[in-house]
């Protein structure tokens, strides 16, 4: 081997690691990353709130009296907002999940369409929440 080749300094190879949670704020998250982490957060929250939802279902089905009680309960605007927050979590998880299912079939995997579909997830889940909001507040 000639001297010239031997003396070529070793290139510094870039090293990529997972970012630490404290570094998160230094990164501008792409839309797909925001959709992804919201998918996780909404999933965990809904899992924790399962007993609450089951309780509501039980009271709505138990008797006419408990049904009327809850019909009165949800006339409070604050209660409607809490229900809407839950609905938004559900719809977001729903839409992001459908996006996953589509991507599982190798559709829309490139950067541009992934960005577009994640924007669509955010928009559609908000529109669905808005529809429920209009219904809850008695617009139609």
């Amino acid at each position, binding site marked *: 081997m000639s001297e010239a080749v031997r003396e070529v300094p070793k290139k510094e190879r870039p090293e990529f690691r997972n970012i630490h949670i404290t570094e998160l704020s230094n990164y501008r998250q792409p839309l797909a990353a925001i959709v992804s982490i919201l998918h996780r957060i909404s999933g965990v929250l809904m*899992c924790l709130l399962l007993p609450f939802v089951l309780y509501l279902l039980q009271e709505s089905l138990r008797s006419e009296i408990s049904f009327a009680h809850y019909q009165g309960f949800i006339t409070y605007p604050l209660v409607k907002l809490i229900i809407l927050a839950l609905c938004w979590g559900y719809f977001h998880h729903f839409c992001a999940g459908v996006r996953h299912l589509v991507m599982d079939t190798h559709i829309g995997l490139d950067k541009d369409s992934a960005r577009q579909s994640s924007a669509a997830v955010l928009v559609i889940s908000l529109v669905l929440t808005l529809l429920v909001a209009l219904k809850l507040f008695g617009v139609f």
Partner: protein
Amino acid sequence: MANNNVGPKRRVVGAHYGLKDWLAQRVTAVVMVLYTAILLIAFLSGQNFTYEGWAALFSQQWFKLISAVTLFGLFYHAWVGMRDVWMDYVKHVGVRLTLQMATVLWLIACAVWSVQILWSV
């Protein structure tokens, strides 16, 4: 690799290293999409929600069954998802197993309760 994965060095994770849970999560997702679509259309197109209408819907055996199937699918789906979250973020084996077992018990309790609710109407 293989030699590092035996005895006390064996990696303890909740996964089955396979396709089963991945597929189950997808299948249960599709079931929930269908059920959600039915309920959402019923809600958005419905007028005058009464106890009679609501209880009549849930008193039919076929609706009890598809509700139960959907809810059980949901609990399995939630198990796969929560397990993934614990595996990603909790490095300590003992803590992770404890959290996974707590999740299992949590979901079993929810499943039993949902059956009781559905068949009490």
